């Protein structure tokens, strides 16, 4: 990836940890690694502004003080960072979803699968059709959102990067 993105891959890299949202503008790159967690990216083509949510669990049933930890409350917060109305015009915004893998074979319940299902249903409720939706599998994901042009690069563990 360094060949493609050059020094920006190091100098403009912003890592997004678990239960977090980061909002950046060009020329920054938002980077995350996922297991069962879900990443949702939003890119504003007009402002060259990108956002990434890294949520751990499906639903915020306990009114947690960290909305970013959950797919439902995290997505609300991510969208509100772009549009206070909560509506994203598809002509202006690109929304992509990744993750939800099952990397621990002995997981008591399949959190990854549940995360993927919940995020899909919330997006449907909001009439947001994701431009990319890559979830599941047994290996982790690495996701890069380039705020310069909105290109998203993804690779599953053991594979090469693809632009999606």
């Amino acid at each position, binding site marked *: 990836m360094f060949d493609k993105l050059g020094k920006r891959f190091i100098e403009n890299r912003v890592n997004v940890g678990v239960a977090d949202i980061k909002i950046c503008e060009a020329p920054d790159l938002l980077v995350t690694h996922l297991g069962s967690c879900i990443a949702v990216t939003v890119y504003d083509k007009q402002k060259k502004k990108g956002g990434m949510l890294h949520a751990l669990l499906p639903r915020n049933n306990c009114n947690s003080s960290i909305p970013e930890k959950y797919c439902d409350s995290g997505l609300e917060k991510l969208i509100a960072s772009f549009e206070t109305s909560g509506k994203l015009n598809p002509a202006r915004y690109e929304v992509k979803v990744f993750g939800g893998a099952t990397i*621990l074979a002995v997981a008591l319940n399949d959190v990854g699968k549940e995360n993927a299902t919940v995020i899909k249903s919330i997006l449907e409720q909001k009439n947001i059709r994701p431009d990319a939706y890559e979830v599941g599998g047994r290996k982790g994901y690495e996701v890069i959102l380039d705020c310069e042009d909105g290109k998203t690069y993804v690779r599953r563990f053991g594979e090469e990067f693809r632009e999606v």
Partner: protein
Amino acid sequence: MNHDSISTELLEVIFKRAVDEGSRVLSKTFRAGARIDFLEMKKVNIQGITADMSNLEGEFLGAFVNLLGVLPFKLLFMIDKKTAFLFTDLYLKKPIGTTVKIDSIVTSVMQELGNIIGSAITNIIYGDLNIESIPEPPNVVYDYAASIFSSFLMSEILKEDRELYIIETVFTVVRYKLAAKLYLLPDSGYLSKIDIKWE
């Protein structure tokens, strides 16, 4: 000094002794000068530590061990691919450089090392506190460091919103360059339970 800091200090002493025991057993297993150094016991910010893990490029193997019982905690033994090859050769007493790919032998060795280190550490911890524990068989995952690490933290992040106690160590084996870490994650209720036990 309040109860919380006394408990933290006590926990740190016990874990230091535990890590020393882990070093001794590891040296014996490898028949080489192996050492695990207690680096620090720290309160970490969940978002920060998992974001930092994304800087670790490459392929990693992680052995997860759950210690069940009155004072539950988790252990993650995480090494990069090259170190996994080296540890496999050392463990199987093969010439260094023999193992060149991740296969069932490497994952079995990782599982066994997780067992060995986990048992050594828990023997001390539970010996000192006089409490029995039940270690679960290790699970080995081959993935990105950050993906492995967030899976390791998951059960505790479910309970805690912002900060976790974590114990970090560094591995050394004489003559070899390693990328190996051992993390211990006490259950979020650990400190109060230690108070009860030692008062």
